């Protein structure tokens, strides 16, 4: 791994490789099934879950519909409360803004709270090139950073690693970044967590600059909200003198009251807890801190302009869709080649980035369209609908278009279908079992050729008048 998703090949190639890794499949199966069961239990506890889900969807849709107004309102509120607001059209601009703000403090080290937005813009690499060391402080992000690895899950980026692998990473790499791992470190999760605590403690207590994202930004009050578990978030948000938050423009919620919905939907959907251990909220410059908010577009307005695709911007990054996805469970997050893996990544990534690369064009196909992701989504994003929409929008090879046209022509008249089926039955022995010739070869790369039956269903029905088991 090289620490960047750039230049990743298309999904089928990544998936093929991942499927050969039985350790990965074992780790993933274990983890996703654990969290799935936990989520289901705490969701069932709430009598009004479906009504909360409907409210969450509507609040987000309203926020997106009036995003211009809410963004300006949030900007005014944050400024009024002593914060500074900056706007970044793309990753490079956001990175430049952060680097300049850090430089202005005279510091060369920052502590970071896990944040998808900063992952998305490759902030750590931008800062490194500017001579600034960005230390990840979430345990899973630390594992990824020390292992020179890539995140593979939205909530638990190191889900592809088991405890034995984590122990090795800590023993080999912690010393390069600060306090080394204890020599007698075991692979007990509590011991590993303790090693991370000691490793990061002095860094927290001396850090002068913290960098975060946010789960929500309240337009009405200018309040930022971060949900987390470990307390590393509180450390980064509270102790440094300067706090810089990089927040996607779709994170806006219209009113303070809207949190009554999202503080129920998010923890239950993501970690399967009634509530996450820590939630911090702050408005502007809290407790004498210097506070900078960077509002990030980076493709979000592209997604917003897609009438069917814009619902992906409702996403609150809970990752419930990853944990129920049969495709994700088998190939893992790296195969999606972006910081947003799984079903939501399969739609969000091409909506944000476009479909110019092979990888991005292949993502809408990284799904079986089973619909489990839609069922668990706390803001009711119809992921299968968007997948089909993006597939239809994408480029199709001439052979496929011609084939589909022929199929359409045949299906359009019962007589034509009958003729075609009869012909197929007669010629069935000529159909190859494994690989179709010519342009069909691409289709059979990842599938077996279905066996052509001796008799079509319609012919069977006519012969037997639909009696079970045929004529008697």
């Amino acid at each position, binding site marked *: 791994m090289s620490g960047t998703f750039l230049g990743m090949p298309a999904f089928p190639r990544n998936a093929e490789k991942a499927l050969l890794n039985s350790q990965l499949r074992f780790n993933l199966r274990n*983890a996703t099934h654990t969290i799935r069961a936990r989520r289901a239990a705490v969701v069932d506890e709430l009598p009004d879950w479906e009504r909360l889900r409907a409210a969450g969807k509507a609040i987000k849709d*309203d926020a997106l519909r009036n995003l211009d107004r809410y963004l300006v309102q949030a900007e005014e509120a944050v400024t009024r409360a002593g914060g500074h607001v900056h*706007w970044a059209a793309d990753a490079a601009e956001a990175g430049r803004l952060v680097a300049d703000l850090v430089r202005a403090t005279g510091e060369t080290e920052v502590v970071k709270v896990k944040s998808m937005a900063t992952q998305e813009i490759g902030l750590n690499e931008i800062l490194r090139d500017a001579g600034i060391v960005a230390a990840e402080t979430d345990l899973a992000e630390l594992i990824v950073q020390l292992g020179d690895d890539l995140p593979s899950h939205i909530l638990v980026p190191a889900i592809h690693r088991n405890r034995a692998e984590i122990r090795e990473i800590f023993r080999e790499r912690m010393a390069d970044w600060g306090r080394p791992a204890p020599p007698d470190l075991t692979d007990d999760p509590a011991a590993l967590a303790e090693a991370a605590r000691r490793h990061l403690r002095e860094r927290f207590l001396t850090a002068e600059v913290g960098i975060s994202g946010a789960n929500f930004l309240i337009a009405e009050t200018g309040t930022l909200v971060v949900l987390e578990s*470990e307390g590393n978030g509180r450390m980064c948000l509270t102790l440094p003198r300067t706090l810089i938050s990089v927040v996607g423009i779709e994170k806006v919620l219209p009113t303070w009251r809207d949190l009554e919905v999202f503080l129920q939907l998010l923890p239950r959907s993501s970690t399967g807890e009634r509530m996450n251990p820590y939630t911090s909220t702050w408005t502007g410059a809290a407790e004498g801190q210097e506070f900078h908010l960077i509002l990030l577009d980076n493709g979000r307005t592209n997604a917003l302009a897609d009438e069917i695709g814009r619902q992906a911007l409702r996403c609150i990054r809970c990752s419930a869709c990853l944990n129920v996805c049969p495709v994700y469970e088998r190939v893992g997050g790296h195969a999606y080649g972006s910081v947003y893996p799984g079903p939501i990544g399969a739609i969000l990534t091409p909506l944000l980035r476009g479909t110019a690369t092979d990888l991005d064009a292949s993502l809408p196909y990284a799904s079986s369209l089973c619909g489990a992701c839609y069922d668990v989504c706390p803001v009711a994003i119809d992921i299968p609908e968007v997948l089909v929409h993006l597939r239809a929008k994408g480029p199709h090879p001439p052979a496929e278009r011609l084939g589909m046209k022929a199929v359409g022509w045949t299906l359009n008249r019962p007589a034509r279908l009958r003729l075609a089926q009869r012909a197929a039955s007669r010629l069935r022995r000529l159909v190859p079992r494994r690989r179709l010739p010519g342009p069909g070869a691409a289709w059979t790369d990842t599938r077996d050729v279905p066996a052509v039956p001796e008799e079509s269903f319609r012919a069977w029905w006519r012969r037997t008048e639909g009696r079970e088991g045929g004529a008697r």
Partner: protein
Amino acid sequence: MSSRERILARVRAAVAGAPPVRVERDHRTAGHGPGDAGLFAERVRDYRAAVHVVPADQVADAVARALAERGARRVVVPDGLPEEWLPAGLERLRDDPPLGAAALDAADGVITGCAVAIAETGTIVLDTGPGQGRRALTLVPDYHLCVVPAARIVPAVPDAVARLDPSRPLTWISGPSATSDIELNRVEGVHGPRTLDVVVAAG
């Protein structure tokens, strides 16, 4: 054109002509009377925190017992914490002038009250008001003892959101610091306080 203007123009163009959205709030909303102290205690215990429910006049005894059990002697006490909650002979650290991070790290623990507590989720919320102190006080020391008067307990999340003031920095706490990053096993105690004790002052 500035990035601000460019982004806002792109947003406006993207949603031009989209229909308005109606937001229905037919979920359970705020205003369902007081929260159930028993349910609150049970839900806090689910996070593997220790909970002691005592009559209001026995809070100091419960605090003394909890501190003794954790071996906590030098304890940070934020200004405004009710004196009757504190046992006699406590070695108190005051946050005035503000304690440095190293001093907080060296303390055995911190005692606070809270702004609101939520029964359904077992959550306590601090808003830096009297008896709670600034956010670092309940973060850096490894042990947090929180006294929750029963009158501060509300039934569910919407009641808490309705009661809280967003202009204050808020910290919502549900059990001790925890991580699930290693094979999704929950491990208590990473960067925040490893131990959370809650004393509920009933009635």
